[in-house]
């Protein structure tokens, strides 16, 4: 097993050293980039593997600077986060490969730095146990994302990037304020330490508002319904390889952080927020997806809908109303959802780059001609919508199994949405 | 003496708010940029009163200096007037 801090240190070192290597030639930059990605994949796989084989059960805690948790910053890696980290690096490697093959033929050396750092930032978001450190990593991820989204340098991409920047700054402002106020009220920035000091019965109005604002900042990043206009523009305007990283990887990191901080902060209204935002996002985006003519925007809506479902599942998982069996089911459902959505959606976005048609009507002809594309397209769509043999089906099955009787209407709505999704994909 | 300093701080704060409103109201972008630089400069004095010399230095050097400069360059590269 590799020390998790090495993933961050080596990646940073590689990103800094590309500044020198870029003068030696593109080959050097490329080899540094791929060596780093391979090392990261190997490292995080070895961590995840040791969790699978149950060599270790407790989360790995990495103290930074040699100080015990509330004084210094610490990272903690458990089974879920190492699994998610692996997914993110895998998607990132795939997207980088795709970008080099297609997209801009010859990305500048700077693009490699941005990709390395966006992956690093999301890994940091997953691992960190400190609220202010979380803010720093969110900023690393978002600034790299602004640059990458704008990388096409045409009107649409720049516009999408600018909107993303405005919304991203506002949301990170909420996160920063939340972190600092938590420090003022509880005298610490460490998640576990704050959690041990918080008692739900002591929730005063000010603390409630503060925590709601903090979680709201994360919800904006999670592209929930009233605040997701920017996300769809990004899906439409940016380079598909970048969208694959964003939708397949980074957003999942935000989901994990959202659920984790809600658990740590013992937020009492988590289920309500998840129900309101998750369900409305899910239904509204499935509804809007019907009207879309632009293929990428359609995928975007579908992606946002899946996120709504994920937030819903996360809310149920963390709310504490589930029995232990159904909690396991829900966890399985989330894991499958993430896997399913990350891979199928990335495939769809790569396809949308390979097929140079933006309108849906144009896709039919291309898909009819090219058997491989057709196979890929239908597999991923079936999987996303949840048709029986695919991963998405198992995810939805576990999800439904886990939901308690009282919330039966959720199941009905989710099923209606899924049927709608299948129909609009096969228009 | 301490009283006087407090009144001075209140004056500075009102100045900051005035500059902020002025910065978003004026149509000339260059003026607006300079006004927002002034906010940072005044803020750095306030930080000194709040016993934060490190932050005051950073705000004066980065917030008032570098940020204003890159704003001015950007305004020079684009348009100087708001519609």
């Amino acid at each position, binding site marked *: 097993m590799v020390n998790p801090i090495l993933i961050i240190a080596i990646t940073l070192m590689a990103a800094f050293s590309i500044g020198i290597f870029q003068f030696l030639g593109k080959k050097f930059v490329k080899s540094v980039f791929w060596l780093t990605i391979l090392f990261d994949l190997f490292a995080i796989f070895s961590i995840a593997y040791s969790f699978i084989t149950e060599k270790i059960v407790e989360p790995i805690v990495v103290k930074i600077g040699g100080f015990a948790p509330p004084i210094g910053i610490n990272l903690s890696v458990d089974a879920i986060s190492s699994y998610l980290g692996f997914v993110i690096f895998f998607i990132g490697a795939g997207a980088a490969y795709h970008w080099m093959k297609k997209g801009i033929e010859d990305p500048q050396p700077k693009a490699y730095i941005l990709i390395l750092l966006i992956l690093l930032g999301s890994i940091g978001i997953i691992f960190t146990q400190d609220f202010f450190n979380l803010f720093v990593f969110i900023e690393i991820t978002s600034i790299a994302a602004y640059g990458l989204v704008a990388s096409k*340098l045409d009107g649409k991409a720049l516009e*999408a990037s600018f909107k993303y920047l405005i919304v991203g700054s506002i949301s990170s402002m909420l996160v920063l*304020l939340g972190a600092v106020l938590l420090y003022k009220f509880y005298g610490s920035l460490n998640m576990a330490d704050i959690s041990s000091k918080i008692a739900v019965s002591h929730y005063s109005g000010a603390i409630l508002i503060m925590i709601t604002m903090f979680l709201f900042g994360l919800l904006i990043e999670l592209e929930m319904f009233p605040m997701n206009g920017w996300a769809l523009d990004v899906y439409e305007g940016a380079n598909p390889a970048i969208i694959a990283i964003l939708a397949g990887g980074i957003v999942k990191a935000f989901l994990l952080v959202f659920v984790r901080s809600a658990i740590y902060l013992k937020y009492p209204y988590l289920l309500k927020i998840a129900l309101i935002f998750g369900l409305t996002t899910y239904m509204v985006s499935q509804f809007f997806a019907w009207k879309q003519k632009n293929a990428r925007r359609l995928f975007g809506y579908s992606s946002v809908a899946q996120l709504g479902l994920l937030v819903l599942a996360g809310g149920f998982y963390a709310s504490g109303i589930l029995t232990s069996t159904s909690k396991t089911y829900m966890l399985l459902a989330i894991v499958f959802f993430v896997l399913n959505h990350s891979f199928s959606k990335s495939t769809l976005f790569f396809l949308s780059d390979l097929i140079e048609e933006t309108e849906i009507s144009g896709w039919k002809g291309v898909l009819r001609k090219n058997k491989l594309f057709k196979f890929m397209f239908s597999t991923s769509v079936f999987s996303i919508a949840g048709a029986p043999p695919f991963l998405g089906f198992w995810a939805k099955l576990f999800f439904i199994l886990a939901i308690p009787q009282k919330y039966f209407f959720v199941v009905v709505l989710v099923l209606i949405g899924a049927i709608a999704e299948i129909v609009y994909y096969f228009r | 003496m301490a009283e006087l300093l407090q009144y001075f701080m209140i004056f500075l704060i009102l100045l900051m708010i005035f500059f902020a409103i002025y910065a978003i109201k004026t149509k000339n972008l260059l003026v607006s940029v300079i006004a927002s630089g002034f906010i940072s400069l005044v803020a750095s004095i306030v930080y000194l009163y709040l*016993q934060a010399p490190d*932050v005051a230095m950073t705000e004066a050097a980065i917030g008032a200096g570098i940020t204003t400069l890159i704003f001015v360059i950007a305004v020079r590269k*684009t348009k100087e007037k708001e519609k």
Partner: protein
Amino acid sequence: MVFFLSSIVLMLIGLYAALTKRNLIKIIIGLSIMDTGINLFIISLGFVKNATAPIISLKELFKSNSLLVDVSKVVDPLPQALVLTAIVIGVAVTAMALSIVIRMYSVKKSIETDDYKELKW
């Protein structure tokens, strides 16, 4: 108290500009005013009355004959450290935003949001 209120007012003015202005550079100016407001807010959170700056260059601040410092005589250094980080991050975001605006201007020769309708605002 007046520091809290003024920083909130600055934040809201900045946010107002970012939400309603139709000029791209004005929006970024709004964001940077908002940043200043937040920083002022954080610093005033850490202020302690009748305490000195967290730079221990005088022997009087130590507890008797040791290197341990008397807590009540010094303002809270942690918010200052956080603001140091936040200021630098703010300038990074501003630089990024301005470069996007310059690039947008080179494509369409305009910095008004009204001229950018390709995607819905």
